[in-house]
């Protein structure tokens, strides 16, 4: 994911990774270990009141990825990290 971000961040793509259920320290440690430089946010605890984002996006398995266009519309989504399909969707939006 970092590789994809590094490659495409200056070509018009942004990346937001939404974490489910891990605590702040765990996430920070993981970010550091993996040298992640993209946006990472906390989506809340499963079953918690702050967990709405996962319901709104209908997430049932991890990882789930969405490619959004500049208007915030869904152009591709899927379970797993299907890099060829993600790249193809991004390319159609001019990210190349």
């Amino acid at each position, binding site marked *: 994911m970092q590789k994809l971000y590094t490659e495409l961040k200056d070509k018009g793509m942004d990346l937001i990774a939404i974490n489910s259920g891990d605590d702040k320290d765990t996430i920070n440690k993981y970010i550091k270990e993996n040298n992640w430089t993209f946006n990472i*946010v906390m989506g809340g605890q499963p079953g918690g009141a702050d967990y709405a*984002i996962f319901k709104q996006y209908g997430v049932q398995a991890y990882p*789930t990825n969405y*490619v959004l266009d500049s208007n*915030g519309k869904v152009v591709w*989504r899927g379970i797993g990290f299907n890099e060829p399909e993600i790249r193809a969707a991004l390319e159609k939006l*001019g990210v190349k």
Partner: protein
Amino acid sequence: MRRPPILFAWGGAALFAALGAGTLPARADEQADALLKEVATATKAAKTLSADLTLSQEVKGQPMKMEGKVKLKKPNLARIELGPPANQTVVSDGKTLWMYMKSDNQYLKRNADVNGLNMFAPGAFPVSMFFNPEFTGLANNLADYKMRVADKETIGGKECQVIEATAEKPISHTIKLYVSPAKLVTRSTIDLKQGQDTIKLTADLSNVQVDQPLTTAAFTFTPPKTAKLYQPPKQEDMEASLVAVGKEAPKFSLPTPTGGHVALTDALKDKKAVLVNFWFYG
């Protein structure tokens, strides 16, 4: 109330599926190697094994314990009955490997490996090593393990030798194999560290009897007529709940672990595309 996952049983398969098993030799330690060889010799000589089985786990300080019975016979016959909360029966009749989950009245079946190498017993080394006495561990590569012989421990009145295998990949964990005076692995523990959390899994055999005659009738299984074949959720079904292509993605503004906030609308500004990824560590 959410039921805690039963790591050893059904959930355990998922826990360890990602870890796989390796082929390269573990980092050599003469004492550990010699003891493992003794274990391999004694285990290969054993034709049957019957015992009481206790599986326990402690996840984030939450303990759980299950009692059961195992009957194992070379080359690939097995009957493992586990009491609550798992309430599972695993039977290998030599051709088919069954797992019946009484609480759900569901079962799964797969072809039994001719050498009993695919038993549904993730992390329960005393069971899996009866059929495959070579230590395979849980890491991707056996070379990731540092092996040593630890201090002896007395378990159930018997003095056991202890082989300790530690690996840092893919997650930091230590496996201990307890070798009985008869040179069989009768207990194993796995300690995992995930972030701040620790997980401890113990599989213990007691009242171990080796080479008691066990007839093949002990290894038959027919699922109850009302039982259903378990169907794993299909990816298409899980994707059906996602926001449809062409629809507007729900707006959000969420906290970062460093005290800031990120809003989708900000990320979209001056961008051609935004990739939104949902993930978790453990």
